[in-house]
């Protein structure tokens, strides 16, 4: 499993429904893993497309999160800003299997466009 396609990041129970938790990536951008009230899981880079607000700290409702800094709403499915705002944050493919959460390894460690580590300093 260690070097498979999917990275095991632990049991689903570690993230309370309706909240998110963070996963820093050394040399990369921090990831926010969301658990919606409906029990779905999503992963996005933890930086709002507006001014890099830590999305992990927003209020999760339906399948969107409201950014804690200036209230943009971001789709957890696509990372797109909704409504009249424009922008997009990368989303990381995620799957749940037998009560554990897995992230697509290549999407986690692949360097993304733009300077690394520009995410919120400590979300």
């Amino acid at each position, binding site marked *: 499993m*260690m070097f498979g396609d999917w990275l095991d990041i632990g049991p689903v129970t570690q993230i309370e429904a309706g909240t998110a*938790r*963070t996963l820093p990536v050394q040399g990369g951008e921090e990831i926010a893993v969301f658990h919606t*009230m*409906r029990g779905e899981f999503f992963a996005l880079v933890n930086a709002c497309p507006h*001014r890099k607000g*830590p999305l992990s700290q927003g209020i999760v409702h339906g399948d969107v999160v*409201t950014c*804690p800094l200036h209230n943009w709403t971001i789709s957890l499915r696509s990372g797109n800003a909704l409504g009249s705002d424009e922008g997009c944050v990368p989303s990381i493919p995620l799957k749940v299997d037998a009560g554990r959460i897995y992230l697509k390894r290549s999407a986690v460690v692949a360097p993304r466009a733009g300077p690394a580590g520009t995410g919120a300093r*400590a979300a």
Partner: protein
Amino acid sequence: MNAPMSIKGRSSPARGRERLVVIGNGMAGCRAVEEILARAPDRYDITIFGAEPRVNYNRIMLSPVLAGEKRFEEIVINPQEWYDDNAITLVWGDRVDYIDREHKSVVARSGRVEPYDRLLIATGSDPFIIPVPGHDLDGVVTFRDLDDVDRMLAAAETGGDAVVIGGGLLGLEAAHGLSLRGMKVTVVHLMPTLMERQLDEAAGWLLRKELEGRGQTILTGANTKHIHGVDGRVVGIELEDGTRVKADIVVMAAGIRPATGLAKAAGLDVERGILVDDHMVTSDPAILAVGECVQHRGLCYGLVAPLWDMCRSLADFATDAPTGYSGSVTSTKLKVSGIDLFSAGDFSGGEGCEDIVLRDASRGIYKRIVLKDDRIVGTVLYGDTADGNWYFDLMRRQEDLSDIREGLIFGQAFASGGALADPSAAVAALSDDAEICGCNGVSKGTVVKCIEGGAHSLDAVRAGCKASASCGSCTGLVESLLSVTLGGDVESGPKAMCKCTSFTHGDVRRQIVEKGLREIPQVMQELHWSTPDGCASCRPALNYYLLCAWPGEYVDDQKSRFVNERMHANIQKDGTYSVVPRMWGGITNPRELRAIADVVEKYDAPMVKVTGGQRLDIFGIRKEDLPAVWADLNAAGMVSGHAYGKSLRTVKTCVGSEWCRFGTQDSTGLGVQIERMTWGSWMPHKFKIAVSGCPRNCAEATIKDFGVVCVDSGYELHVGGNGGIKVRATDLLCKVESEREALDHCAAFIQLYREEAYYLERTAPWIERVGLDHVKERLFSDPDTVAQLAARFRFSQTFMQDDPWARRAAGERSDLHSHIATVRPVAAEMEKA
């Protein structure tokens, strides 16, 4: 039923017939055979292997058998005569262990070898057993076949406790059956919502309440850690959080896995299921597969409807008239008597999706349709599933519904049919005595008369004839009547709380108290929220209203709070936090100052600043360090300053009579007393207080929410001041003579504000809206009111005045302050945080 056949050796095929061997005497295997026989009765010489020691039966009816609503004989699909009449050899109670593709034969456990020209694998699924310690104890059962049902019934005979692991369809049907059989049932579910794959949170909540009402215990977000046994027999389970539940039987209903072992061993292509093409042919052209064991176009199914379609296509192919199967859209119903529940398609929403939600609290109904491009992509119905099949059909046909979308949620009878398609037209077409408002029994004629009599807004109609004044579910109809009757002259009423509801903040507050609503999902259901779980603006408001209405009883919902109140610190633009410890009345001492200085150095805080609220603000603290910072500050006797909260902020004071040559009273001392009384309280918005020692007013008391200006003869109490965006000087509320009275009036005023203002409305706009006279009237018209309000405030404070920092410093909610893990680059190894 006849004896098992155990003829060893090869059976010789009838002349000229191809030999078809079927592995699996279940729903798909037998159906496939039926379909083939219907097309070409003489083509194959058929042998069916079944691991179960019985004829083919309707597996989905095992639930009613468990519940005592049906007997096994009633759920048999094909009795032995059917096999005999069609010259099918049924080998029951014998499991196929091996497929020999080279010699085109199968080998069964009994040793029997059966050659085939065509092989059909229909092995179904295996229940998934969570591999926790104790899963192999006696008394841990699955729910898949009749033997499982017999095991459960045997356990139920002596009563006792049952634990069902898994709150999906299967688990709940097992729980229902066992509970009807007299067992005390606990359902343990990993996810927060029951049947989360079929239901959204709102419907899941209704289902949960119903089941709890029937005596079941439902534990969600619960992970089983251990199954305990004594002498090899189960006695109970233990959850990850340490909870223990007694159990005489444990039913594992945590999911199913396609049974692919045989196929995999034979070298067929297998992923989650056995890979098949549109004709149900596996990677070996001589081998077909069908049912739950297959994976078609990336999907594995766990319901019977897709099997019927697969079997048709399989039979067409096997009789040389291939058509092809292109996948199925499925729907689910729960077979628990008295609970109507229907779910189909994808209702998780998403971009471009629109929700239409209808809730009828009095009848316990929740309906939700998800549309994309005016086509149904998913639906959840609870309480009234009469239109389920209609929606399902519209969804399967991907019908464009733009013409009837307004009336869609009211069902087929309402929405379909020419003139009635437009809701206004539909309303116009109603007869005068048609009932509009069920709660108050108001007919259409009455509403129209009321509108024609001058009620030109929703509120006016509510006041005039009571229509839509109770549960509100007819609000849409009344609005339609307004526009039909008045054309464009409808006056818009006060603004709804948010896009999730048509009720105003005032309506919601009133109904929470009147109806005794005690949980957020309950408010949403009873008040017909149009979204499944609200939004970022109503959730914090509801959380506050409930907290205010039910002190000591309501459990604060952290996930409905803004980040600052969840983290008990102010978020900064770089994602770090600022920390402001309380300094009572603006007074400090060397010990506190030293502790603050130490924190600044120890955690490398880039800045410390004197605030406009007379205390010190430490900037740039990382969320991981917050608990440690608080622990250090707590150790020096300081508590949270709530600089982040919709709550009491600071009490600013001036020097007062103790030192100042103009001071008339002890403003500093009174300020400290007020702060000790009010700290920790949650408010509709932030609340600031100041106490000045004389009318020179150095503490700026006349721009505070509550300000005290001391004078020789006592204390002038001022309310409704605001610095900030729109400056408003206070209004004088009254004058009192003693500190005790000043404290009581402060508590009473705060409580009135807490109970009456809308969420995010500070005292200044609140007083502008309701008028100072209203505030005075509410406080002073009855001589007891001040004392009563103050008592309510003090009661609520008994629950609120514990330092949130201390709890966090002691380790509470450490998940909020820690990462899940850290990922290192390249090797990308995980390091548990």
